[in-house]
């Protein structure tokens, strides 16, 4: 799907609404992280980058562009897009975490999901396996891995970063959803992640910094590749983006949305 920037923005707004309603139906959910990465995922799926066709989706196909949401707790942001694309029926969202196919963390039994996630620090290493397989098989397909910034505390991320650069996996693109918040607050107060860009540069990556809620900047970054290095996009984001009383509040990492909160939040998202 190859939509215009304006159209992608409208999709992302609509997805915020659906996420709010779905979490309201569930009672609680990972709204903060979903809202910080929904613009990133929307850019990937609607901007002509990932050719995600439910009628032509063979799991493990290295000729196809593939994406892993390594911060699996934000899966609801991925689910609403996959549902929109036709990977599963709308009613699955209404029974998320309640006996349907969709759980809080994704796995490949869900149509459109490439690999299990939920335990942090795995996706980049798995992505190296994806990208390496594509190279071995002679395809120019890309692998996209969306990481949480808090996930970058995991040592395995840096083991993978080192190897990705060593192997010159130019077909590998990582995105760090840099919302600067963990469950217990500011990443810089907990255990400073900065200088984030310098760390990736030191590990041999092509580093791009963008506003993670600006579709135009994201699209430009996704289309920028280095001839020798894997690319990482440090996407500056806001946890809970789109709902003023959720933005930048750690408590909305995993929050409850009752009808009153839903109505307030929907009013903001619809006017976004």
């Amino acid at each position, binding site marked *: 799907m190859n939509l215009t920037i304006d159209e992608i923005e409208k999709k992302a707004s609509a997805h915020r609404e659906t996420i709010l309603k779905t979490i309201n139906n569930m009672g609680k959910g990972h709204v903060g992280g979903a809202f910080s990465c929904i613009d990133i995922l929307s850019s990937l799926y609607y901007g002509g980058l990932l050719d995600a066709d439910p009628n032509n989706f063979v799991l493990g196909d290295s000729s196809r562009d593939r994406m892993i949401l390594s911060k699996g707790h934000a899966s609801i942001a991925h689910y609403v897009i996959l549902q929109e694309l036709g990977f599963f029926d709308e009613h699955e969202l209404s029974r998320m975490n309640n006996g349907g196919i969709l759980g809080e963390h994704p796995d490949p039994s869900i149509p459109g999901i490439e*690999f299990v996630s939920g335990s942090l620090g795995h996706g980049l290493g798995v992505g190296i396996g994806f990208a390496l397989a594509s190279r071995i098989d002679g395809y120019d397909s890309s692998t996209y891995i969306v990481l949480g910034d808090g996930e970058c505390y995991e040592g*395995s991320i840096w*083991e993978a970063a*080192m*190897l990705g650069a060593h192997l010159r996996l130019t077909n590998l693109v990582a995105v760090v959803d840099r919302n600067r918040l963990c469950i217990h607050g500011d990443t810089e107060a907990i255990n400073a992640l900065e200088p984030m860009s310098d760390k990736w540069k030191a590990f041999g990556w092509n580093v791009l910094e963008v506003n993670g809620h600006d579709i135009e900047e994201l699209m430009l970054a996704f289309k920028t590749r280095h001839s020798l290095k894997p690319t990482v996009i440090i996407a500056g984001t806001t946890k809970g983006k789109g709902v003023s009383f959720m933005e930048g509040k750690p408590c909305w990492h995993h929050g409850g949305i009752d009808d009153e909160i839903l109505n307030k939040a929907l009013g903001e998202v619809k006017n976004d």
Partner: protein
Amino acid sequence: MTNAVDMRDAFFDRLYEYVARDGNVIVLTADHGAFGLKKIEEDYPAQYLNTGICEQNMVSVAGGLAASGKKVYIYAINNFVSLRTLEHVNVDVCSMNLDVNIIGVGAGFTYATDGPTHQGLQDMAAMSNLPNISVYNATDATQTKGLVDISFHQQGPKYFRIEKGVLPRVYTSTDDLAVGYKTVLENPSNFVVLSTGYMTNVCYKVLNAFDENVRPSLVDIFRIRPLNVEKIVDLCKEKNVVTVEENLHSGGLGEKILAALKLGNHKFACTTIAVEDGFYFQFGTRDQLHEKVKLGPSNIFSKIENFIQENLHEEKN
């Protein structure tokens, strides 16, 4: 009898043939070597990758490759490719039920001078607790070659625990490995020893010192998971059972056999010989360490002899 082949080379020499045959076979190492592996690196560099000493990432990369249709082998010292990586193996390999073959070298006290960081006493228990995985404990070079055949022809996660160095030969062929065990010594007494890996070699010698009238049979249990419960219960029928292994008691072969026999309503006696739970900051030869943990040939002989004396009446009934 000896097979003058290092078990590592038995594994990788056989694997070399599959690498040569199938371009989808990819071999990863966390900077751990073997002569046989070197040949793969030299002749098929596109199918070989040294990830450096980062076992966790090696497992995740293997998962990504296997999820893309590759048959993957990963290699490192036992503890580092099992205990250190356990959650990565659990999530990226086992929960995905992927065709990743994990080769750990250093069973038991193989690395006898290296202390508890390198003693492979817990890896088998840890790995055999993971759903979907098959766990093999290799006994000699001949059998190891057959295990590589299994690794290539069977899908799914597998853990192979092998040795460094040359071990006496117990197996004369690679036939019938699919059952997961092999009767090495068959004697008419109603005592049977179930051992695994290196200890099968030790038990083979120890049991030959027993009087023929009471000498137990010896069965090598090389597939720890899934344990062939039905067959093992059957071969233990109306026999007193001793298990011998070079693992900690907790989670070891003995516990698994006891559970299987209980399920099978086994009425005869059973005892387990293993390493007491603990960390062994002991350094020396493997034989010296076995003496210290009471797993030397004389210890095993005494324990089995006492067990036989205590349970001889069963034979008379």
